[in-house]
């Protein structure tokens, strides 16, 4: 019998059984609209499927029945016992026809259903015929004659225990199918019984004789039963693991043989039970062809949906959870991805777009690919959407790679469909998809090539109950890390090539020419302060969550173990850093780390970590920025943040003039002091001189360099230890050691030597006192001279705690400029403390300064009492803000 027909028979038999019950309920309860609706849908489904399978006789009968039910539903017809009787008779007839169909694999051509159809139609027309009562259930086939319908087709509700027994006896797998409660789920085809398994007898009791009905070979088992069976098996697995652990320590034990047998049997049982929960992924896809077809129709597109690997099985719990995300992603591909036929022809593609859905197993995981050959993600649209939604600023965007920008599609409230269609574009899209998938320990990855299409890849575990986990140790405590997220393990020590380095106390690791941000498990879990043991030996678990790759610093790494995830006690449920706990083979209880939570748990830096790590793998708080590379004098290339440079100029050296031995040039009708980046260098008299112009409040300063090399996007990880005047330190930029130039140093040099006398310009005013609270030495060094030059008296401190000390010491300022992300106390807390406590500082204008300003941050900043919010590097913005707020006079 062909699979389709078998599925149909099983499903319809179940539906009919439900129908019997529901119609009887309807008779007792004729005004229940939900009930009528559900009956109507059931009959409608039967009709639809029959039409699809080319079973006209069944279809016609069901159609007539549906008409009557439709009238019931629309309240055009009253639910009378006569009507119900007629419907029940039709259902009986359908059963008879089905029985014939099952036996002969074709529709019965004996007799016809005109009697019923006429009666039903008459009923639908509001003219119930008394003839309806006369219709007898015909004896159409022998099988119907000697087999009571109630048994032949009603799925057997017994068998929970039988299935357990069957598994316990290790009989060949029998037909146990798990069904979701929703009737639309198709049954799973379980392997056919090979020998005389115990289940056969059960089936035979129901369906007398050789012709046991298909419906009898699968039974409905309550999902809760399967769940509890699974739990029991999980416990057994744990106990087995425990026993094996004990055995490992003993040689020549008499238990060896039996335990090995137990081991094997347990594994088989586990597999067997697991199988009962498995359903082909095709079940989750069943509705997609229809959705894509409707969508293609609505949008006038031509789309071919290819589905490969529909038979790939996975746990029904997982299946339920990915059903909606999958549907959404396919819709997206069809709606956003595939172009209109005309556009496709124009770009040289076949008129019909293809969306391919492919599922396959790969090492304990199931991979689902959704590939379309459409236009790919529209980067420009995404960018404008990001700006429109205020998810990032233009300058932040310019510092991101395409891949990084595309990641924004996973942000909440993001939808690029220009028009909201009925299918997608409601803005509850990919973020929900990602959340759902990550909730079950899966990951989503995607690639997109403009004009060629997009490819999404979902990786999910086969089952949620038993997972493979890596056991790690930190501060003498053990934790489990889900293996799915682990990419590799790195061993570090002071002498090996992999060494943990610190940037402003943030540990990072150089791994294959990239800096990997590290999370100290010890610090995250507050197990102690020292990151690494004294000898510097540590292990790093390199993990990937979403697109964030980071390393977790641990002391030791043990084996991988199969663990049974148990939920944590309610009393601990607010500790979201653990996804569960488990009992190991040696009987100890350990916590399972939730890496998603760890990423977001790393204090305020968490969101940054995720962002920065997403594609660029940078350290905490250090985002990518544009850097100008140049050469000046001997030694390494030099770099300066491009944001600090106003212009790049080439000036004719003949124009360089000297005043009191200092070089200067007429620039924009003013004199601009020139400073050589190479101390003591002699400027040649001829040729062109490359100059970096730093501008400030209408004053300019030129830094003479030998050669401008390039502008690159990179991270500024300044190693602060090797400081000398004019350089902040050395960093790896574009793969080379680079001196990061302290622009502030040259600025102050120029202004001392050149504007020195002009200090008087500020003398008439009282010097405004600004307190700068900033943890990064780089920014402190940058901003202090900047503000000084702009005429402020600057005091800078490392963190709010020190700032508060100054308050206690009785110092007074006119304004405070504060960073947001700082150790010990963040900017928000700092400001709300100042604002809420009546002190001399509580009315000061306070400016927030941050490299990551999300609209939420802005809101929060204003709420807690920041006067204004300026992005880091926006010098003009900061100076303007200070100027605006302080021009009213000194407070």
């Amino acid at each position, binding site marked *: 019998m062909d699979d389709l027909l078998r599925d149909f028979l099983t499903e319809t038999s179940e539906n009919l059984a439900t129908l019997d019950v529901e119609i009887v309920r309807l008779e007792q309860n004729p005004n229940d609209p939900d009930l009528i609706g559900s009956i109507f849908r059931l009959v409608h489904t039967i009709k639809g499927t029959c039409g699809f399978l080319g079973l006209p006789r069944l279809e016609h009968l069901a159609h007539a029945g549906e008409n009557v039910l439709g009238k019931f539903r629309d309240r055009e017809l009253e639910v009378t016992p006569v009507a119900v009787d007629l419907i029940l008779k039709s259902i009986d007839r359908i059963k008879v026809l089905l029985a014939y169909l099952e036996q002969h694999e074709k529709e019965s051509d004996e007799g016809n259903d005109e009697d019923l159809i006429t009666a039903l139609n008459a009923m639908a027309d509001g003219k119930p015929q008394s003839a309806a009562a006369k219709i007898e259930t015909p004896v159409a086939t022998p099988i119907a004659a000697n087999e009571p319908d109630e048994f032949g087709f009603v799925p057997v509700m017994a068998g929970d225990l039988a299935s357990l027994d069957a598994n316990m006896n290790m009989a060949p797998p029998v037909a146990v199918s798990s069904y979701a409660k929703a009737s639309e789920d198709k049954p799973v085809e379980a392997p056919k019984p090979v020998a005389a398994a115990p289940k056969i007898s059960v089936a035979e009791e129901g369906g007398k004789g050789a012709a046991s009905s298909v419906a009898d070979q699968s039974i409905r088992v309550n999902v*809760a039963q399967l*769940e*509890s069976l*699974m*739990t029991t098996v*999980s*416990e057994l697995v*744990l*106990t087995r693991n425990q026993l094996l652990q004990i055995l490992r320590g003993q040689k020549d034990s008499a238990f060896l043989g039996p335990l090995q047998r137990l081991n094997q049997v347990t594994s088989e049982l586990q597999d067997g039970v697991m199988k009962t929960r498995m359903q082909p992924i095709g079940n989750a896809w069943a509705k997609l062809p229809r959705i894509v077809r409707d969508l293609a129709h609505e949008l006038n597109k031509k789309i071919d949906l290819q589905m490969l690997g529909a038979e790939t099985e996975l746990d029904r719990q997982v299946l339920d959870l990915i059903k909606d995300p999958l549907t959404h992603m396919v819709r997206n591909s069809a709606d956003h991805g595939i172009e209109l036929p005309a556009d496709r022809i124009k770009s040289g593609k076949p008129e019909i777009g293809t969306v391919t859905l492919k599922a396959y197993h790969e090492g304990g995981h199931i991979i689902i690919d959704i590939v379309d050959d459409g236009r790919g993600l529209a980067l420009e649209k995404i960018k404008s959407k990001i700006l429109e939604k205020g998810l990032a600023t233009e300058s932040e965007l310019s510092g991101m790679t395409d891949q990084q920008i595309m990641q924004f599609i996973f942000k909440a409230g993001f939808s690029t469909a220009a028009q909201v269609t009925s299918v997608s574009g409601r803005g509850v899209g990919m973020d929900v998809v990602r959340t759902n998938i990550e909730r079950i320990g899966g990951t989503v990855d995607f690639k997109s090539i403009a004009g060629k299409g997009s490819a999404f890849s979902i990786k999910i575990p086969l089952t949620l*109950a038993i997972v493979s986990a890596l056991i790690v140790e930190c501060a003498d*405590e053990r934790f489990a890390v889900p293996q799915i997220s682990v990419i590799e393990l790195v061993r570090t020590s002071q002498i090996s090539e992999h060494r943990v380095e610190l940037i402003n106390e943030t540990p990072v690791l150089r791994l294959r020419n990239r800096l990997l941000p590290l999370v100290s498990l010890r610090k995250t*879990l*507050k*197990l102690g302060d020292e990151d690494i043991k004294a000898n510097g030996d540590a292990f790093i678990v390199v993990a990937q969550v979403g697109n964030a790759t980071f390393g977790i610093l641990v002391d030791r790494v043990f084996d991988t173990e199969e663990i049974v995830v*148990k*939920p944590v*006690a*309610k*009393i*601990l449920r607010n*500790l979201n*850093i*653990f996804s569960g*706990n*488990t*009992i190991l083979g040696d*009987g*100890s*209880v*350990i*916590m399972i780390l939730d890496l998603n939570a760890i990423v977001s748990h790393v204090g305020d830096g968490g969101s940054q970590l995720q962002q920065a790590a997403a594609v660029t793998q940078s350290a905490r708080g250090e985002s990518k920025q544009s850097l100008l590379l140049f050469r000046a004098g001997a030694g390494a290339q030099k770099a300066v943040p491009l944001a600090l440079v106003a212009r790049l100029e080439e000036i004719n050296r003949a124009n360089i003039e000297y005043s009191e031995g200092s070089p200067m040039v007429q620039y924009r009708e003013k004199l601009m002091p020139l400073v050589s980046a190479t101390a003591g260098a002699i400027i040649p008299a001829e040729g062109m001189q490359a100059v970096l112009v730093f501008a400030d409040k209408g004053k300019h300063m030129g830094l003479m360099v030998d050669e401008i090399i390039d502008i690159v996007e990179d991270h500024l990880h300044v190693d602060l230890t090797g400081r000398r005047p004019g350089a902040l330190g050395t960093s790896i930029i574009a793969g080379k050691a680079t001196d990061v130039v302290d622009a502030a140093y040259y600025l102050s040099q120029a202004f001392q030597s050149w504007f020195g006398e002009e200090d008087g310009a500020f003398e008439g005013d009282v010097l405004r006192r600004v307190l700068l609270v900033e943890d990064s030495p780089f920014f402190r060094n940058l901003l202090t001279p900047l503000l000084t030059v702009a005429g402020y008296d600057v005091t800078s401190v490392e963190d709010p705690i020190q700032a508060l000390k100054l308050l206690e010491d009785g110092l007074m300022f006119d304004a405070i400029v504060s960073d947001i992300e700082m150790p010990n106390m963040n900017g928000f807390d700092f400001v709300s403390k100042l604002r809420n406590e009546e002190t001399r500082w509580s009315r000061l204008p306070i400016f927030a300064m941050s490299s990551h300003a999300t609209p939420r941050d802005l809101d929060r900043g204003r709420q807690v009492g920041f006067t204004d919010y300026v992005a880091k590097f926006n010098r003009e913005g900061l100076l303007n803000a200070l100027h605006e707020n302080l021009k009213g006079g000194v407070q």
Partner: protein
Amino acid sequence: MSALPVPATGSALTVTEDATQGMYVTMTIANQLFGIPVLKVQDVLGPQRIAHVPLAPPEILGSLNLRGRIVTAVDVRTRLGLSPLEDGSKSMSVVVEHEDELYSLVVDKVGEVMQLPTTDFERNPATLDPSWQEVSNGIYRLQGTLLIVLNVARFLRAE
């Protein structure tokens, strides 16, 4: 995963319920006698190896494995705002089941099971410290001492 099966079955429970009415497992915390209805108690344990749970509230000592089930250990002293026991190695614990989860209440000492007559039962004195008021269901007047009936749900902050 569904909850683990509860061992006590319905019929058995109804029979024993009457018999166990007013029966309490008693325990001592800082010289104060406490009682928990005997039906709530699953087990009484001596000192156990407890795995610490990082970031957990201070009263949570950690979790332990009781015959394949994970039990969360709660330090009753810390929960009640008392200083920890000087010699913690001799502590005992009472395992209670609450909403299908097991909790081990670590106390100074577990006493006997007592049948207490309802006539000796009284409401909390109004002057009792609010944090004690919260976890106390009422007081039994015993000879020479008073027994506080512990409200397990509120003790575990599960309400």
